[in-house]
């Protein structure tokens, strides 16, 4: 199905081969914030850094204007991290299984609780409609209402509505999961 040629290639063609000159400057200014966006989605520092690296590589070949870099990188990190959630969740459950198998230490109970909470948050996030999840993560990552609106093609007025809806859904999911455990 060659449709993918006409679909994938146009998105990738810009600036192919050459890495943009301002990459290092943008990287040094924004890397911690981009990692933090991915971390909110994934709940894991290592996976968040992997996602940020992936996003900066794409950015390095893009012609996104420098002034829009942070917004673009944040949106890309949120989307990429949400894409990774599924495989990431599998990894987390493996880690969890390993963890349970270890000999008990005073901290194990706390650690398990944290892991379990994190797992519930990620699962709930993965169930949200994509736009709600992205708007939620971007807003909690410090993008202004206007920036979130631009990133998602929304009117600034509707960003609050979408974020509110996402938070309400997340709270319900968390309560539900908590009570069913």
């Amino acid at each position, binding site marked *: *199905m*060659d*449709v*993918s*040629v*006409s*679909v*994938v*290639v*146009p*998105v990738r*063609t810009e600036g*192919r*081969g050459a890495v943009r000159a301002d*990459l*290092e400057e943008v*990287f*040094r200014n924004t*890397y*911690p914030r981009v990692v933090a966006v991915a*971390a*909110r*989605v994934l709940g894991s*520092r290592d996976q*968040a*850094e992997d996602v*940020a*690296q992936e996003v*900066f*590589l794409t950015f*390095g070949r893009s012609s996104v204007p420098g002034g829009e870099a942070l917004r673009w990188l944040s*949106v*890309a990190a949120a*989307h990429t991290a949400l*894409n990774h959630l*599924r495989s990431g969740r599998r990894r987390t459950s493996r880690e969890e299984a390993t963890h349970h198998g270890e000999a008990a230490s005073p901290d194990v109970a706390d650690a398990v609780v944290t892991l379990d*909470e994190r797992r519930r948050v990620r699962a709930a996030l993965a169930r949200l409609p*994509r*736009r709600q999840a992205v708007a*939620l993560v971007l807003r*909690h990552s410090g993008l*202004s*209402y206007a920036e979130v609106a631009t*990133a998602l*093609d929304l009117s*600034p*007025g*509707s*960003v*609050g*509505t*979408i*974020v*509110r*809806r*996402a*938070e309400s859904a*997340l*709270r319900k999911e*968390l309560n539900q999961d908590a009570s069913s455990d």
Partner: protein
Amino acid sequence: MRHPTDGTLRRLVDEPAGVADADREHVANCPVCLSGLAAAQRDAALTGAALHLDTAPDVDTGWRRLSRSAADERPRKTVASTTPAHRWRAALRSPVLAVAAVVALLVGASAAAATDWLQIFHTERIAPVAVPDVDLAKLPELDAFGELKVTEEVSVRQVADAAEAQRVTGLAVPQVSGLPRGVTGEPTYHVVGKASAEFTFSAAKAVQFAASAGGKAPPPPAGLDGSKFRLVVGPGLAAVWAQDRPVPAMVVGRVTAPTVFSSGIPFPTARDYLLSLPGLPGNVASQLRNFSSDGTTLPLFIPADEMTTSSADISGVPATVLTSKTGVMAAVVWVDKGVVTAVAGSMSADEVLSVARGLRWSR
């Protein structure tokens, strides 16, 4: 006055300057709104805490890692963009395109003993073949079985508008009658030129392929070694609603379906030989064996771990609906009068179907 919306209350929580004075005053004196505001504050705080994770990545280490990856990537990219054969291979590596390749080869060999170039394969239907991720990675590329020479390169470029896309490709441009929620703005149009390649089957390479998979190739049937196939696909066009987002919200694409011409040997002979080679995942082989030998069904390899498929119809034409198991994206693909059309995007299966069914065609 009316109560401000939940969205306005939410904005009061963390960006009050963005809320109109009248709304702020109303909320300050309205018990209903104050209660709504308190609930919004609680949910926002809960969510903030749930999502929070301390990260303090080391920027120097991160930069060194990125520099290494960028350096590793560059030579490969350069090769890919300057060597036609590599470019085709890269295109064929796409799981979706691999379809056209392997199948074109399999089904394509079908036309019996024609001596001149004879059209032996034309896509009229699409049938999904579910393949686990691991097997997908194992699907062979065409040049594992012979020599692939690109005669017309895959070329993609953006054009000014729908009219230009139609003029360049000769394909009618679909017009979307109603955009789904979340898809806004004007699309950009891209065209793909006709691409073609000539493939010469090599028995020696097939033996190598089998050996690399740890097996032994049976002796090739007479006439297969050195037989030639010509693959033609395109032109095509795509309307992409992406704005400057990294992931397009929606794509509507059309492409003249793949066609294969052969100077070759009987289809069953070639097919059975290829299927007998070790290395082709067993479940793929057995599903392919079931495809029609009339050379009209294009199998679509689907990563079974990530996508599910179902059937639908678009104005009476059978279509395949693909849905990612994460619910993140959906696509519908169908073939009508020799043209493959697809609608895909970050939306639900119902939404892509409704877009597909609502397409209007400019003439």
